């Protein structure tokens, strides 16, 4: 079943607004480019299903899925999961780096205290 003109208009406006939001954040360096690609999938996958209903029906048949929208939700969930996994990996790296920096800072302070004590005695 082809989408109605009203659906196409509302969806297009939403997609464009969402992509503009993402692009602005990438340009302002508040979003990583790789994250931008993953987050774009949240918009790109439904767009393919909406603008190319024949193609999405064909893909659904190949995948053995009765209703194309199930494939749509599945693809979006996978994209969201990949994004969440990326964040978890990055958080772990940051945690390790923070621990290392905290240790280095503490040891530097010990050296500084020792140096200051040494110069006070002189």
């Amino acid at each position, binding site marked *: 079943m082809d989408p109605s003109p009203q659906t196409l208009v509302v969806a297009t406006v939403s997609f464009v607004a969402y992509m503009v939001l993402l692009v602005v954040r990438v340009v302002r360096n508040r979003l990583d480019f790789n994250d931008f690609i993953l987050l774009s999938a949240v918009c790109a996958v439904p767009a393919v299903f909406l603008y190319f209903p024949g193609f999405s029906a064909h893909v659904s048949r190949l995948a053995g899925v009765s209703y194309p929208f199930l494939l749509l939700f599945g693809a979006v969930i996978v994209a969201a999961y990949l994004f969440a996994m990326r964040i978890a990996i990055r958080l772990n790296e940051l945690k390790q780096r923070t*621990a290392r920096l*905290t*240790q280095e800072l*503490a*040891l530097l302070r010990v050296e500084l*205290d*020792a140096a200051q004590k040494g110069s006070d005695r002189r």
Partner: protein
Amino acid sequence: MRLLIGIPCHNEGGSIEKVLAELRSCGVPHDTLVVDDGSKDDTARRARPLSKVAVLSINLGIGGAVQTAIRYAHRHDYDLFVQLDGDGQHPPDQVRVLLDQYLRAPASILVGSRFCDVQSFRSTRLRRIGITVISSALRALYGIEVRDPTSGFRLFDRKAIAFFHDAYPQDFPEPISIGVAHRAGLTYREVAVTMRERQAGASSIYGFKNLKYMVRVLGYLALYRMRASA
């Protein structure tokens, strides 16, 4: 032989002065480094007149605190490193026992064990059950026999210092470090020592946390075993 005694502390303001004072009369030439692991009390202030103090600006946990001390030992070229708790559980006079045992029969890691000496304080019954479970897991996963795998009273030689300064387990370091060290070819030995109940403060592992701790330790032991094989 240059010895560094590393004392990781978290809110041990009530006992650290006594521990450091006792260490002064333990009869073993040494340097000390107290690692204040993000304490909310006055641990660092009380320790400063008696020892060098490394203050971690955030709480990293026992693994992070001990690694800080090992890093210091590595950087300053110490021959031996002894880890000793700041809560008074490890009588400072037992440092001499570890050192004598090391000189008699060297190993990369000497673990001060509560379970080789009937006179020692051996912790609560629940914890002893947990320790038995962890020992069994170490035997099954790493092929090693350790009666007191959670003991935080241990001696590292140069080889162990070099091994751990950059890669000390951050989570549940006591049991995991022995397993990992063994897989890397380091030797270890258990030595009978006498321990006490903690002199002040409160344990961070209590009640239901004991069970949660147990499950997580077993999970991490399995994880590190997989990493060692990879």
